């Protein structure tokens, strides 16, 4: 079985963690693979995991009847997927579907929440990392909401 400590230690998302913390996180981690079309999680389900995508592509989708599932974002190699495990009510707001063969490191949220309660230094470092991810996603979502390409005024390119 592949040791996950070195992989986690090299990942930029966990760069603030000490080797001891990395070992703790690795204790809550396992490798998983998803075939194209398979769901990592579905909207409304309990959220007790997050994922580091090692390889592949995952579509984050939301059901929007009558349009069906709308992809609002894709997550690719090296990126982090999921933060609903971190805050109550621990329920996925979106669904995540593999668009191609996808390998991930899955981290058990319940296990990590427990470790963070026991070790606040670990909790603080993880929260800093997630705050960064949430901030990036918020920036991207705001830019997406602006729909900037639809509102380009007349000018040099037109």
């Amino acid at each position, binding site marked *: 079985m592949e040791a996950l400590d070195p992989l986690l230690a090299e990942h930029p998302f966990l760069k603030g963690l000490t080797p001891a913390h990395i070992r703790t996180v690795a204790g809550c981690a396992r490798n998983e693979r998803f075939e194209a079309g398979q769901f990592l999680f579905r909207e409304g389900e309990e959220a007790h995991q997050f994922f580091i995508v090692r390889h592949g592509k995952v*579509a984050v989708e939301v059901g929007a009847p009558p349009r069906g599932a709308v992809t*609002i974002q*894709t997550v690719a190699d090296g990126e982090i997927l999921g933060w609903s495990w971190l805050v109550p009510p621990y329920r996925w707001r979106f669904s995540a579907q593999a668009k191609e063969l996808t390998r991930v490191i899955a981290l058990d949220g319940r296990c990590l929440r427990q470790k963070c309660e026991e070790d606040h230094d670990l909790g603080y470092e993880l929260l800093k990392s997630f705050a960064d991810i949430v901030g990036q996603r918020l*920036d991207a979502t705001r830019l997406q909401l*602006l729909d900037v390409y639809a509102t*380009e005024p007349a000018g040099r*390119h*037109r």
Partner: protein
Amino acid sequence: MSSVLEAPRPVEAAPRPDPMLPVPFVVERTQRETADTFTLELLPQGGGRFPFDPGQFNMLYVFGIGEVPISISGDPAFPQRLIHTTRVVGAVTKGMGALKRGDALGVRGPFGTGWPVEEAEGCDVVVVAGGIGLAPLRPALYEILAHRERYGRVVLLYGARTPDDILYRKQLHDWRGDFDLDVHVTVDRATSAWRGNVGVVTTLIPRVPFDPYHTVAMVCGPETMMRFTVLELERRGVPAAKVWLSLERNMKCGVGLCGHCQCGPKFICKDGPVFPCVDVWDLMSRREL
């Protein structure tokens, strides 16, 4: 040897064409790119060449309707023909879109500053385009790819509104296949048939390999998209001093006389449209301008 007392003979300068006088061109070919964009290939009436720097623009005059500033989107290595990709938004561009092979068009230019393709030699190059902002960047890509050995990694990050709005689709595909250029495309809104990336173009920046300390970035798109891009490049370690932007204002004369395109102390038509980011960053976030 001439004496210092002798007055130097004035050098006969070639007569410069009047920048306010449109030169007639003829439409050689038209190409529909997306539902609302098209490309015109123009030849000078009576032949000749039209040298330009990547990033420069022309004033295109549709007779009887009016004149608009349009960036040049062709290959600078082929100055015999002039290529412009345009989006239909008003009366002039609508008239331009209705032109057929053989129709005439007035051209003034080329105007303004170009992309720093020479300054970028020896560096990685990250080109970030949003929407029709890919059109003014295409000449820079042609130039860089023509001298590919002079550059490190060359990355094109392109964001469009939807899959149907992707410009130069075949060329992007070809570039990606050539292995010379790392091409990443994303769309803000996807249809179910789309299998590529979804998300704004800034989300591609953390994904691609380049050396942020030896990178020159060239960015063109809506101004909000460019501001977010600069911030994301900065987060990645690319200093603003190594980022160039192409600004857009209401250009009219093209030579810095009329003031229509003035943005603070800058005339976009003459001092730009391509600026080092550090020269215009403060202006971009000022609401009054």
